[in-house]
């Protein structure tokens, strides 16, 4: 019948789109969840096959012209090692988080709108996948709005409908819309100057027409795209929306967002900075490298210190996420091979580690109903597997050897040292790890070496439905810490192609 292989790029987006809409017809109870799991599982399968297809192809790239319109005029899906990798992350983490979501959603979301919740959930994943797969600048904006709208709604559902979730969501909505508008504006400026919307076409125009890069219009387009993307990916100091959103969102949503949403934001930055403007413009002619490096360094340090001061563990992890994003930004702002490779690898590594940690916290919330530092006291004994997952994830954030976090740090520090005068940056990366030690260790101490508060009822280990997804991600963080040849290979390939300008 249909040759799936030939249509993989579009199936990755349309299958969850159609399926997501059908979710509202699945009724109540476990059915919407099962359907969503099936959908995300299918998507995950597609992303794996697409990854294999990209790796096998001679050009290192798979292109799909939607509606069979030539790419300059229609919309093109263009998948290279970089976005195949991000798709794999979104697909995989999306699938695993969906499995995880069942119990926590049952507990936190009113039963009469579970089908709508999962519909929005699947559409959010669709939006993220769509942003990643496309090669058309305006298509990015549309899909960005889908993922944003769905995420606003998901956050607003709130843990036990906490009212803080509403303000968190609205604040994100306003900042997110301003950010998206900046992106729209940047795309408009670029379109006006280049006459096209296809990313590769834009790049070719920017490269081939002499003098165009000095134009003030391109310069302003660049600045506004950067600002918009900074807001979307919660780059310090444009991260104001993130801590609240992650804190008050339902547990499963926090896990999904932490692992995928900001990552896709970073991916967009990759595409705009490297694929469209090209590394020579973004980091040669513009001072953006310096600006980004400063923001990233400040972000790593400031949010690290802020995370230490939090008593709410979800908020702590949220600040930590902003800091970890700093690593990713720092990596690609270095604009050298190992820096970018570190950045790409950290996208994956942070997704699995932080996803797993948020799942562990979700399990703690599921059992104790709280997630402050006191609620984990003595839990090391009562919920050994959950807390062990949290600890291992924390070791990853620290960058402990044989965890995934170490691999990213290895590349990042190497990238810093390759940059002339990059020593202070390497120091920032390493000091960031130390801050991670402090905030992770507070939890470890409380969980393993302190007794539970008197009067708190003892709790059981988290249910298997939560433990399995949690440990899948944490297990992945260990596996890809011990054997990072796969991630390392992909990251280096992606970095090379980004530096070469062509995807």
């Amino acid at each position: 019948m249909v040759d799936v292989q030939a249509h993989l790029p579009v199936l990755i987006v349309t299958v969850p789109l159609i399926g997501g809409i059908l979710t509202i017809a699945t009724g109540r109870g476990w059915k919407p969840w099962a359907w969503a799991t099936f959908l995300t599982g299918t998507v995950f399968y597609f992303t794996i096959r697409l990854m294999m297809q990209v790796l096998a192809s001679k050009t290192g790239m798979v292109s799909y012209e939607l509606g069979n319109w030539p790419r300059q005029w229609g919309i093109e899906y263009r998948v290279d090692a970089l976005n195949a990798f991000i798709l794999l992350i979104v697909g995989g983490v999306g699938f695993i988080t969906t499995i995880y979501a069942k119990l926590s959603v049952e507990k936190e979301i009113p039963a009469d709108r579970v089908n709508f919740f999962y519909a929005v959930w699947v559409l959010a994943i669709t939006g993220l996948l769509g942003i990643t797969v496309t090669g058309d600048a305006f298509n990015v904006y549309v899909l960005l709005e889908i993922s944003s709208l769905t995420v606003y709604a998901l956050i607003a559902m709130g843990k036990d409908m906490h009212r803080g979730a509403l303000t968190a969501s609205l604040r994100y909505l306003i900042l997110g819309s301003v950010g998206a508008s900046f992106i729209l504006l940047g795309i408009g400026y670029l379109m006006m100057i280049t006459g096209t919307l296809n990313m590769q076409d834009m790049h070719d125009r920017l490269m081939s027409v002499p003098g165009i890069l000095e134009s003030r219009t391109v310069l302003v387009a660049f600045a506004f795209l950067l600002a918009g993307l900074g807001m979307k990916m919660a780059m310090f100091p444009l991260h104001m929306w993130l801590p609240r959103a992650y804190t008050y969102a339902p547990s499963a949503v926090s896990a999904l967002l932490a692992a995928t949403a900001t990552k896709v934001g970073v991916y967009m930055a990759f595409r705009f900075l490297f694929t469209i403007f090209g590394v020579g413009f973004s980091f040669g002619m513009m001072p953006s490298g310096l600006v980004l490096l400063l923001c990233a360094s400040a972000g790593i340090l400031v949010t690290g210190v802020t995370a230490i001061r939090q008593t709410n563990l979800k908020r702590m992890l949220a600040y930590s996420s902003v800091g970890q994003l700093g690593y990713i930004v720092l990596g690609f702002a270095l604009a050298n091979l190992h820096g970018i490779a570190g950045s790409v690898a950290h996208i994956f590594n942070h997704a699995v580690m932080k996803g797993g940690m948020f799942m562990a916290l979700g399990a703690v919330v599921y059992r104790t109903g709280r997630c402050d530092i006191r609620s984990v006291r003595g839990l090391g004994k009562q919920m050994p597997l959950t807390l062990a997952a949290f600890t291992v994830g924390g070791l990853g954030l620290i960058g402990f050897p044989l965890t995934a976090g170490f691999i990213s740090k290895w590349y990042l520090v190497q990238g810093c040292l390759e940059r002339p005068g990059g020593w202070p940056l390497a120091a920032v990366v390493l000091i960031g790890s130390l801050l991670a030690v402090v905030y992770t260790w507070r939890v470890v101490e409380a969980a393993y070496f302190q007794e539970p508060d008197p009067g708190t009822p003892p709790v059981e280990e988290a249910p298997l439905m939560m433990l399995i997804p949690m440990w899948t991600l944490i297990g992945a963080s260990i596996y890809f810490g011990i054997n990072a040849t796969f991630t390392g290979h992909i990251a280096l390939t992606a970095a090379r192609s980004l530096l070469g300008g062509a995807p």
Partner: protein
Amino acid sequence: MTSVVLIDTVLLLLVTVTAIAIIEVRNLYTSAMLTSVYSLLMALVWVNMHSMDVAFTEAAVGGGISTILLIGTLVHTAREEKPLKVRVHWKAAVVTALTGAALIYGTFDMPRFGDPKAPIHHFRVPEMMAQTVGFVNGTKGKQAPPEGFDARAYRSFNGAVTSVPDDPKDTAWRETSVLAQHGIIVPEVLGSHPQHAEAGHHLHPPDDFNGHVPNSVTSLLAAYRGYDTMFETTVIFTAGVSLIMLLRRPRREGQAQKSAPLLDQTILRVVSKMSIPFILLFGLYVITHGELGPGGGFQGGVVIACAFILYALIFGRPALYRVLPPPVIDMLTGLGVLVYSGTGAACLLLGGKFLDYSMLDTVSPGEGEALGMTLVEYGVGITVSMVMLNIFNQLAEEESR
């Protein structure tokens, strides 16, 4: 030409004044109504700039839906803004001034307003329009322009441009622009050159649309960038579902619905009863006619929604629910997107790429393109109308609690 600029200048001044008023006025109802005025003025601006489809949409959305939404919200929240302690928010003013300055800085290198030689007018879009689609000259499918096709030669297709000699005053700015210096804006007059006249033979005769539908906006919207439009529909769907998730509460059976207060108004009742079928018909017309003139699924959908909303206002929501029970509305909301994506999937199943309408030629020979576009327009229409209705219902239910 000058008339466009003249009207434009005046309208935009009005728009700006309205915008300031919207922000500064303290009564929120006034603000909402001014928003409506603002949108209508904007619609005029769009018309002045020949963007009929956008004007139609702006009038429907800004003048209609947004206002309904705002008023609906104001009913449940507040009438007035809290008086502010400070008159001018200095932080905001500084941020705004800086951002604005940056944007203005970027405008200096832009092609001037209406300049026919701006890249956007002679690069991809003209090529696209010169492309052949559908059954043309007996061959099926899409063909790129022939080898050696000069995009700029499209100007001869775009008629008058080539025949209008450049006014040296108008083009003076180009000398100072880096863009012009490096050839991104082509200074020489094309078409008058023999070489381009020769290139002209690749072009299609002027009475042929190369298989495109006459309204090139629809052509782009539903065909070339049909995939974007599918997601645009999904955005609406998402908004609808989000609203259900956020606002809907379990419906209590047997709850006394407010009777329709307007039902006693005979004139209203009779007139609306008579006009509702026509509004519906007009909505369908707008959707179907989108290929030929301004309009399309979105605008038509809004019109249809208005018909239902009018019905609900006059006859009460129970009456509406008898026609369209809420679960049906929910399902129809999704159905629209499904029709759209289903059309795309059908193309895929028929052996083409996703949304490759030429595959539908097997269903209706020679008219696959048109069939596909009509189908997706209906998809958009269904989702838009049902989401709008749903939003109205949610807000109205909020009120009746």
